[in-house]
Structure formats: C-alpha cells, structure tokens
C-alpha cells in the first residue's frame, strides 16, 4: 500500500508509543531493583546491590525456584510425549473424532484457568486423595501438563503437516525399519519444532499461578505463588522486585530461541 509520509510517521509514532507502553513498567522493575530505599519510592533515592545479594541468599526464594523448575520439567516431559503422540495421530491418520480432538487439546488453555483449576482440584480430591496421593508437586505437574500439551501439539502438528510423508515412505522403501525411520528421518525433521514447543511449555508452566493455586498443597510453593504470597507484605518489596527483575532478564533467552526456531519453521532455509 502506498502510504503518505504523514501516515508513515503517524504509524511509527503509534508503534513507538505502544512499545513504550509495553516496556516502561518492565524497565521500572529492573531499575527499581537497585533502589536503595526499603519501601517503594519513585524516583529512586540512591543505589545499592544489597537486595540482589539478599534475594540470592533467601531460602524461600531458592526453594520456590527449585519447585518451579521441577514442575516445569515434569509438565514439559509429559506434554512432549502426549502432544507429539496426538500430533502424529492427527496428521498421519484419518479417524472418527479427529476434528474434535484439536478442540479438546485447546480447551484447557481457552477456558479460564480458574475453571480448569477447580475442575482438577475436585477431581484430584475425589480420585487421588483416597489413593493416598495428597496435593503437592505431583498434582501441580498433572495440572500444568494438561494445558502445556497444546503448545507442543501445535508446533509439532504444523511441522508434520508441512513435511508430509514422502520422506518417511522413501526411508522405508530403502529398507529402514519403523524405528530407524523415526530415529533418522522423522525425529530430525520435527526436532526444532519439539524444542520450540518444549521451551514454550516450560515457560508457560514456570509462569502459571491460577491452576497452580488449585492443584498445589501445603509445603509446595512455586515461584509465582511465592511472589503472589509476598506481594502484599511491604517489607518483602525489595526482594520481590529483584526476583521480578531477574525473571525478566532470564526470560529473554528462551523466548529469543523459541522465536528463532519457529521463525525457521515458517521460512525454511533453501
């Protein structure tokens, strides 16, 4: 479309305004983590690294991070297995209910988290508790895996649709067994889609708070739960601020990688 100079300029201004709307609060968090004042003051009155070293030594933060990583790894592992299986079933076979399964896969993320949360909460209470499995890390992993399946599924199914079956057929024509074909042909084809899906699933799980609230038990506190529980305690302010700033910085890397990988998926190198 041929745009006038003025239209271009206006669009550029709107873009800059939108980006600053997005980034100003995040920058405030990073800057404020060095604020010397113990209670929130803006602009900062002085600068210190004290809160960063305090946060690094804080036991409850550390154990919350460990819990979150465990939950994320568990949920991602389950999501990779189940998401890939459904992706293969949907893209390689025709069967009754094939159209509805993609709807069911999306449902846990399309419905508000609180509904998934209370549904799983009451299901776990009636099924797992009599078996002696209480609420804890295990139930958190079950809950997270339910909504992580969709991101792995989406990534893998898009890749499988695009690559088709001709390479796999060629492989078995050349005498490879089913397992060899998977290891040497199919897996290399879907590997980057799997990594992208796994990164996003981990990020999704690491950040989740609502389903977590309803599936975790006493003694299990993920990092988002820790932040939420301390959000209303004024003297914990500086440490929350450091945790938030650290998370912001730590998240740049996996997001960049996932984006790069799915970018490569859209525009294959030729």
């Amino acid at each position: 479309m041929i745009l006038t100079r003025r239209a271009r300029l206006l669009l550029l201004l709107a873009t800059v305004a939108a980006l600053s709307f997005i980034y100003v609060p995040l920058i405030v968090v990073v800057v404020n983590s060095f604020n010397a004042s113990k209670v929130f003051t803006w602009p900062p009155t002085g600068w210190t690294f004290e809160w960063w070293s305090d946060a690094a030594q804080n036991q409850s933060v550390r154990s919350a991070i460990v819990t979150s990583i465990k939950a994320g790894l568990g949920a991602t592992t389950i999501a990779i297995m189940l998401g890939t299986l459904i992706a293969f079933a949907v893209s390689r076979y025709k069967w009754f209910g094939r159209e509805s399964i993609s709807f069911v896969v999306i449902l846990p993320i399309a419905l508000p988290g609180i509904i998934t949360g209370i549904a799983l909460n009451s299901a776990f209470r009636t099924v797992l508790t009599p078996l002696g499995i209480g609420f804890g890390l295990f139930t958190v992993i079950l809950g997270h895996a339910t909504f992580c399946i969709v991101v792995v599924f989406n990534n893998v199914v898009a890749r499988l649709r695009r690559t088709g079956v001709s390479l796999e057929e060629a492989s078995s024509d050349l005498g490879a067994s089913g397992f060899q074909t998977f290891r040497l042909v199919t897996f290399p084809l879907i590997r980057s889609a799997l990594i992208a899906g796994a990164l996003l699933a981990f990020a999704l799980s690491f950040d989740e708070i609502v389903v977590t609230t309803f599936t975790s038990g006493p003694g299990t506190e993920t990092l988002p739960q820790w932040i939420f529980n301390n959000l209303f305690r004024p003297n914990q302010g500086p440490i929350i601020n450091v945790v938030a700033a650290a998370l912001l910085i730590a998240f740049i890397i996996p997001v960049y990688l996932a984006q790069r990988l799915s970018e490569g998926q859209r525009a294959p190198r030729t």
Partner: protein
Amino acid sequence: MRWLADAFHRTPSVGRPATARLSKWKGDVRAMTMTAASLDPTPAPPAPRTSSGRSGFFYRHPRLRLTALLAAPMLWLVVLYLGSLTVLLVSAFWSVNSFTGALIKVPTLNNFHTLVTEPVYRTVALRTLGIAIAVTIIDLTIALPIAFYAAKVVRTRRVRFALIIAITMPLWAGYLVKGFALQTIFINNGVLDWVLEPLGLKGPGFGIPATILSLAYLWLPFMILPIYAGFERIHDSVLEASADLGAQAGRTFRSIVLPLVWPSVVAGTIFTFSLTLGDYIMVKIVGGPSQMFANIIYDNVGVANNLPFAAAAAFFPISVIVIYLLLVRRTGALNDL
C-alpha cells in the same frame, strides 16, 4: 509401497549409486541421505522381513498403531480433563450442607436461582463484562497500528524480526512479574503519579480504571500477534491493485485490508475477552476493594468451601465465551487462534 522396498532390496548393487545420487540433494533431503548412507555398509541388504519386529507388526495393523498413539493422550485429555470438567459442571446442580460442609448430591437449581436473583452477582457480572469490553477496545486501538506497521510498513526482515521479538518478549515475562510492575506504576506516589505531577494531575490509584489498564497491558501481545499474522497474510499485490485502481490509502484500508484482517481481529478479541472473564488476581493487586466475577468463583472454592456454588458461577464465563465463539464462528476467526 512395500513391494517397491522388496524389489529394491533384491538388487544389492543399487545401494551405492542411490546414495551418491541422494547426497547431491540439499536441505531437507539431507536426513534421507543419512538414512541411505547408514544402511549402505551392508553389502547385501537384509531381507525385508528382518525389519518386521514390533514396527513391522504395527505397520501391517494401522488401526492398532493409531490406538497405541492415542491411548495415553486420550486417557489424559478425555478421561482426566473432560471428565473432571463434566463432574464440575454437574456439581453446579448439587448443594452443600451448611452445617457439616458435606456435598448433597440431589439435583437443585438453587445455586442458579441465587446467582440470578441476588443483585450483587448481577452487578459484578455486568461490571466484568464492561471491563472486558473496555480492555478489548484499548487493546485494539494499540494493536492495530503496531501490527500493521510491523507487517506492512517495515521493509527489512531483520527489523521486522526485532519488532516481533519486542512484542513477544513481554508475553513470556511472567504474569506476576507484570502484576508487580503494574503495582509500582499505579500505587499511591508511584510512577504514574510522578509522571503526572508536573502536569498538576494525579493517577487513578487502585480501582477499576487501574484494573482495566493493567488487564489491557497484560493481554496486549495476545491481541497484537494474531492481527500481525493476519496483516502478514495479505499479499502486497492486492494492495497495489487497489492503489492502481485509484484508491487512497484510507480507502484501501477500509475496503480491502480491514475485511481481510477481520477474522484475526476477532481472534484477538476472543483472547482478551476470555482472559478478562477468568481473571481474579489482577483486581486483587491493583483493584483496591473491587471484585470481578472470577473472584466469586475463587472465594466460593477457597473461603466459603462451596464448590457447587462456584461451579454454578463458572457457568457465566463459560456461557459468555461459548456464545461469543458461536457468534464469531462464521468469520473464520477460530482458525486464527
């Protein structure tokens, strides 16, 4: 295709030339070449039957293979997830013994009756819908220009990639990290007050306006990304044709771009609507004493321990979302989610 494989294996001399030929291919075919090469060292390839271990069995029984693929995911999604969802919705018709807290599994419409007749629930429901609409409008106003700029105005691939990264990054920055950030913005004597002070103004403080702005902030990437994808799908030649036929930029946008991008816009509004209806945390952080509808669900599960009432309340966001999905299905927005 199996006969072809058999024929191939009966002529051992074909092995090497085929690999050589294949290795000339580039890109995706590289994986294939690897397969061929790895099979190559066997001078006389084994008879095809040796490859029929478990995989050969599954190869001959595609139905069984499908069952093996689907068993675990189906058990998880259909039995665990849909099952517990169904039980939840059914429990909306149960009640709780107010003395012992035990579930009474006798069908009743009392929960729904209370929800409809008590004015407080109606007020909160309408307020939540209003907030959802306001959030959607704010996000649309911000998302349309930036998505259009990224998809159609930026010419270099690298700048576009950087812009998309810049938009996606906050999506993964963490809900509570952003919640905390917004708290520092809207708090009394916070960043917003500091910015507005020279103008002689004051920020809105904690309350409904802060909640609306915060939710709009949180869901913004969910609006930008589908709209960006929609703009990107519009081929430049369509826009050029419109210009060749004499349309000004404004006319082209109204008559060509907007109808084509509409399904993506609707997809974005599904996100902002559904996410706003289910949110109860942001209003606790920046909403002051105000409540949204999901707080009713939350409080009845936790504090009041009245799961049937919470389940009945859950019917409101679910039905709003389902009705909205049915209304917009014709636009084709669901494929853009």
